[in-house]
Structure formats: C-alpha cells, structure tokens
C-alpha cells in the first residue's frame, strides 16, 4: 500500500500533472442545435439590447452576448485562438478595431449591403471592420465666459491664453489616446509631445472623472473649456437628474479645426471574428446593424451620428449644426495608439 502511494506521489510531483483543472461542477452546456451567433461587445446600451432582440425576432437567430471592455475581450480572443466561440466583435474606438485586425482577430467579408450602407472611409480597406456609429470629440465651453470666436483648433488649446482653463479626463481613456494619435499623424510626434505638454500645463485641475464630469466642472466654474465627446453631451441633456440637464445647457459646443483638416471623429464598429463558427449569421447581423432601422435606433437613443447616409441624425445632433470631419484614415489612429500612450506618460498627463 505504502509503495503504491509512493509511486503515485512520485508521478504527481515529477510527471505531467495538469489533469486536475476541473473542480467537479457541471457548467451549463450550450445547446448547439439552434441557429445562433456569439457577440463579444464593448457596447452595452439598452438600445443595443433592443436591436439584438429585434434581430432575433426577425431572423430567428439567437444572439448570445458577452459584455466586457474591448481590451479585455481582445485579450480573451487572442488567448482562445482557433477555439474562440465569438462570431462578431463590437467595440467603440477605431484604434481598437485596427488593433483587432493587426492581431489577426478579424476576417475579411464580402457584403454588397455593407458596401452600400457604410461610406468607404468608415470601413477597413480589407473589409475586416465596419463603422456603425460616429462621435465627434469637440470643445465644450462655458457660454458665459468664452465666446466661440476665441476657439479655433485643438492645436490652439496649447496656447498660453488657456492657462488654468482646460478640463479633460485622464489619458487612460481611449478617446484621448485616439485624439493624440490623430495629432501625431497630422503634426508629427515631436509637435504632438509639445502640444500634450502644454495642455497639461493649461489644465485647471489634474485629470479626473469622465466626460460628463468635465462638463459639470465647467458649469461649476472649475475651468472654462473641456475636451469631450458629443455623445456624452447628448446623454447629459437627457439625464434623469435635472441638475445634469442644467449642466448640459450651460455649455456650448465648438467643432474645432473646421478651417483645416476637420474635427477628430471616432467610431464604434464591428467585425467578423477570424474563427467565427457562424460566419454567415455574423455577416447578416452586421448588415442588420448598418441598415436603416438599426441606424435610426442608434441615432435616436444614443446621440451618435449614424454612418448610413440614408438616416438623418437626431434633432439634437442636427441642432449642433453640420461639421467637417477629419478624413484621416481611421487605421492611423490604431497604428499611433501606443505612441500616444507613451507620450502621455512622458509629459505627465495622468
């Protein structure tokens, strides 16, 4: 008996001993017979859920959703490799979509519907990802202290006249990373570094909170201007808290760089996963999201600009006026993303 234990232990200690991962719990087994599609998404808005439900109703294809941060989803997809059950990846920010493509997480698809619905500058040149919505990163200003005539470009925010007046969130946020990536692409890395350093010098407080908090800080008088996404202003104006609505009304919106390259835009978008088990359904799903019905929901419920030109923006967005968007190839944002993060660290933009 002792001898047996001895041998057993020896095997366990020295041999390959990785067969003990299960811990005896039975997990729910996915029923595979049904038509289904697995969606990894960073977006988690009620409007999205409504769209998923509509898609289910119309096609009978069940939508399984994993919600998490895009970066974490991409790590998960990388680790899962060929076994990855995801069919569609949906994220916000172009940089991330490019990153997903570069990592080989997506595949090219042929879809005449998508080519009609989505303008060519808003989709990947190899058709690996497609924008679903647009947001612009604009300057919000205190209506009572700043006149729009004083504002011009992102570059101008580095000027000394804005000393101690600028509010902006931390550099951990992808929208700031993409903005800096676009400035690196347009002005070069050295100028971008100087720009970022000057912005840090012009900040009225160290970066904290989210985009909404920057707007509220303007109204509270902590600073005069803030760099924010249009989308969050929409949210603020439709908040269930009357004080937030007041804050949203207290600021004006300015679309910078209209005289030259245009305002920096960002997108949320989707791509078909490299190892999608239900590829045909995945394409159908993205086509549905780019169609008129879904685009109208995006535009109305979420204060985002639709990418399908057949659909008009919501009244609120229209009230901010038309603007010229930076036509920079969106993949550049992804390629410059890491550089942007390193620059932020160097200049001490928290």
């Amino acid at each position, binding site marked *: 008996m*002792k001898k047996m*234990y*001895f041998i057993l*232990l020896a095997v*366990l200690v020295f041999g390959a*001993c*990785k*067969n*003990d*991962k*299960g*811990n005896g*719990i039975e*997990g*729910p087994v*996915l029923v595979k017979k049904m038509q289904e599609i697995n969606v990894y998404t960073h977006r*988690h*808005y*009620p409007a999205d*859920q409504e769209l998923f439900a509509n898609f289910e109703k119309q096609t009978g294809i069940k939508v399984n*959703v*994993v*919600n*998490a*941060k895009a*970066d*974490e989803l991409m*790590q*998960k997809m990388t*680790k*899962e*490799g060929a*076994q990855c*059950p995801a069919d569609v990846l949906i994220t916000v920010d172009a940089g991330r979509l490019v*990153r997903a493509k570069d990592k080989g997480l997506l595949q090219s698809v042929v879809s005449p519907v998508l080519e009609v619905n989505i303008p060519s500058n808003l989709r990947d040149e190899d058709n690996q990802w497609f924008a679903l919505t647009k947001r612009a990163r604009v300057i919000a200003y205190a209506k009572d202290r700043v006149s729009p005539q004083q504002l011009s470009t992102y570059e101008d925010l580095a000027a000394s006249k804005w000393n101690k007046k600028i509010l902006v969130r*931390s550099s*951990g946020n992808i929208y700031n990373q993409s903005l800096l990536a676009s400035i690196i692409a347009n002005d070069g890395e050295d100028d971008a570094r100087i720009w970022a350093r000057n912005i840090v010098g012009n900040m009225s407080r*160290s970066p*904290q*909170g*989210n*985009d909404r*908090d920057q707007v*509220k*800080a303007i*109204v*509270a008088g902590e600073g005069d201007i803030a760099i924010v996404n249009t989308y*969050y202003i929409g*949210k603020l104006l439709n908040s269930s*808290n009357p*004080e*937030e609505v*007041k*804050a949203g009304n207290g600021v004006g919106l300015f679309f910078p760089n209209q005289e030259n390259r245009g305002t920096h835009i960002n997108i949320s978008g989707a791509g078909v996963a490299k190892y999608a*088990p239900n590829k045909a359904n995945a394409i159908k799903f993205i086509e549905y999201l780019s169609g008129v019905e879904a685009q109208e929901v995006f535009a109305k419920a979420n204060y985002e600009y639709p990418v399908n030109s057949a659909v008009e923006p919501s009244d609120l967005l229209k009230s901010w006026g038309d603007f010229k968007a930076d036509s920079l190839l969106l993949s550049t944002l992804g390629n410059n*993303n*890491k550089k942007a993060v*390193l620059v932020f*660290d160097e200049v001490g933009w*928290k």
Partner: protein
Amino acid sequence: MKYLKHFRRNINKWSIFTVVLVLLIGIPIITIFLKIFLGPGESWLHIIENVLLDYTLNSIFLIFGCTVITVLFGVSSAWIVSRYTIPFQKQLEWMLILPLAIPSYITAYAYAGFFDYGGTLELMLKAIGIIGVKFNITNIFGLIFILGVSLFPYVYVSARSVFLYQSARLIEASKMLGVGEQKTFFKIVLPIARPGIVGGLLLVLMEVLNDYGAAQYYGVSTFTTGIFRSWFALEEPATAIYLSAILLIVVFAIIGIERWQRGSKNYAIANKSDIELSKIEVSKKRRFVLFLIVCIPVISGFLLPLFQLVYWSVLTASNVVSIAFFKIAFQSFGVAFLTAFLTVFLALLILYFPKWNRLQWLRKSSRIAILGYAIPGAIIAIGVMIPTLQFDKWMISFFKNNFEIAIGLIINGTIIVLIYAYIIRFLAVAFNPIEAAQSKIGKTLIESSNLLGRTNLITFVKIDFPLLKTALLSAFILVFVDVMKELPLTLILKPYNINTLAVKAYEYASDELIMEAALPSLCIILTGVLPIILLNKLILNGNKK
C-alpha cells in the same frame, strides 16, 4: 537514501491528495510567477523612467493613509462598543460592519455624486440658503478617505473580538492593581489586540492595493491602475505581470516585517475568558460624545453612500428595472452561493489534508491558500485562463485523435472556469477564519480520538466539524459577499448570457450612467447586509459559548 526511506515510510494517501490539491490551487499562481521569468515587455524602461515613481509614491501614500484611517476608526469604535454602554449599542455593533457590503468603487461613485456640482450636498445646502460651498473630493485625499471608511470594518471586527473575549481577565487584573483605564488600554489591551488588528489591517491593505475602479475614477495612478494601463493601453501583458510581481513582493514584505517585528512575543492568548467584562460607567454627556464618535464611521462608510444610492435609484428605477434585471440578480446570487460553498469546502481540504499527511515538507503547503488574495483579480483571471485553455486544447486534440470527434472548448467560457478563479482569489477569505477556529480546538481532543482508534476522517466528522460550524458559516458568508462584489475577474471570465450585478453596475458606470448604476449596486448591498448581520450574531454567540 535515509531520506528516501523516511519518505517511503511516512507517505500516505493524504500526501497524494495534498499534492493534487496544491497543484489545483497553485497552477494559476505558478503560471503567473513563471511569466515573471520571461521578462517585462518593451516599454518597461519607459515605465521606470516616467511613471514608476508616481505609482510607487501614490501607492505608499494610499497604504499609509488607509492604515491611519482604518486603525483609527476600527480600533476606537471597537473599544467603545465593547467597553461602554451607548445609545443604540446593539444596532451600532452590526452597523459598523456594514460598509463591507458596499464595493469601494461604488462608495467612490456615491461620494463623487454627493459632492459633485449639482450634487446632493449642494442641493441640501441650497435648501437652507447656503450657496457656493464646494468640496473637491476626487483626489488622492478623497480616495484615502473613501477606501478608509469602506474598509475599516476589517480592523473593527478583529479588534472587537479581542477586546470582548480575550482581554477580560487582564483588564480586571490591571484594574485591581490600581492602573487607570487609559494606561490599561495602551499597556495591556492594545498589545494583546495587535496581532488581530494587524491581521485585519493586512486584509485592508490587500483590498487597497487591489482597488482599480475608485482610483481610476478619482484620477490617482497606482500600481493597479498601472497594471491595467500597461496591459490594455500598452498591450503588454508581460509588463503588467511584472508590475504585479513587484506589488506581490511589497505585500509579502509587509507581512514579513510584521512577523519579524512581532518576533517571538506570543500574545495570542487564544483561550476565551469565561468572565464577562463589566462595562465602564460614564456620565450621560460623555456617553453621547462616544455615541457620536461611533456614528462617524457608520455614517461615512455606510449611511451616506447608501442614501446617495437610494436617491439615484429612485430617479432611475424606471429605466433600470426589468425582467432581465431580476434574472441578473438571481444569477449573481446563484453564482455567489455556489462559489461560497465550494470555496469553504476547498478551504477545509487544504487545511486538513496537509495535517493528515506525514511528510514534513508538505505540512506547510496549506500556506498556498492565502496567496490568491494578494494577487489582483485581473491577473488571476489570466493565470486561470492560460492553463485551462491548455487543458481544453489537450482535450480537443485527444478527442480528435482518438474518436475523431470535433469538440469545442469544454470548460472555458463556462461557469466552471469563473468559479475556479473565484476560488483561487477568495480561498484566503474562507481559510483564515476556519484555521483560526481550528487552532483553538487544541490537539488533545483530536489525539484522544486518534488514540481510541478513530481515523482522521471520523475524528473530523465527530469532533472538528461540530466545533467548526460557526467558523464555516462565517467563512461562507464572507466569500459570498466578496463574490457578489467582485468585478475585474468576473469581467474577463464570465460566460455567455450570465451576468452579475457588479458587472451590470460597472457597465452603467463605464457608460457614464453612474446614476443608473445605483440600483444594481443597491441590490449588491442588500444581499450583503443580511448575511453580515447574521455574521455579527455568529461572532458574538460563538465567542460567548
């Protein structure tokens, strides 16, 4: 040769079980440690040059500040409720534990909302005619305050049980020798309580170092926010793991310093006093002052954030409540229940198997159980994912080669991996109270049973288990509450179509819908409050026996 003989003579089935168990728990942790030897990513130098100092100073400042606040609140309130009679004594005793039911990132959101522009404070002040007063709380001082008030109960609980049940005789003796109340406290009570207080404090510090949500929202760069940044923004998991390795070394250094400083002084007079400590009589006015002192941490750690969350929930309930929401609540509850049960079971095994085995070098292996708590949740997720995926890949090729059946991932993307990761993370939470209770049983009972020819297992069932019941239930409750609150690990490993309240709250918050996050948060808190009140009863009764 001699060693081998000893080895053969002493080995038994428990040695085998111990090794299996240690591997099961250890593999994810070992995976992370092995990663360290692969070196950091290419931006490591950049990090050292630009941000490491900032991370370090902020983390040290946080540790220091939170130590001061948690010890101050925890020890003072524990002393007052155990030595004095104050108004609402019974209620305050358990309310002092309730801050643990609120995840600290939620407390952070609530405070930000309270002190915000147009926030609750401003509205209240406006109502009484004060305008223009504003506190800025979203900075490192605010963060210290928030982590302090939400974590002090760890110190309170451990200090109180020492005050109540271990120091009675000594306090009586000290009083009889004519020593004043104050001197008794500092010379006798505090030194006795120190190991307990430090034990609670260690839990606090690990939580502080693990915090991501609150620090990120308040714009304070710490080691943990740095880990997330290098992992996700810089795309360098290797660098992230390197940073967390440094963090681990710091944690172990803190534990080591405490052990070394305590030295051979053994204050653990574990025997419960059988005499009840008489309360100190004070004037009505002083009683009221003491009452106010105890109210401060209760209000700031629990009532104020709760009030803010209730207010937000009322504003947003109509957008949030749906059938799906109840489903999520139910799923959360189920996962936490199952995990707590399994974790307590595994904690028992890892406590007893090494004891029953006779190989000396395996005896200490139960220490591995406490490692998981020191590692940030996101890192544990990776540690679990790498080996389980390997396992799945083996299974896939095994089925393909032998049966020509193509199968998908078996355990990844299921609840098994999620619960496995929870167990690794929270084993310490279950292990510590069970071990403490077990050490009080004493060897004599068990040795007598063994002498009477009872096997280890029967001895356990007949003697240990009945004596451990309270500790087991406490362990269960602690793990349950922790799982309900857990976020980073759940985000990464959660399977399809299963959601938890913490994830739901986070989703709302990350979409800048902080108000909508209030209702799921409230549910987490409510499911935590009842077990915690129960836990408090258990501690009190368990010690009175």
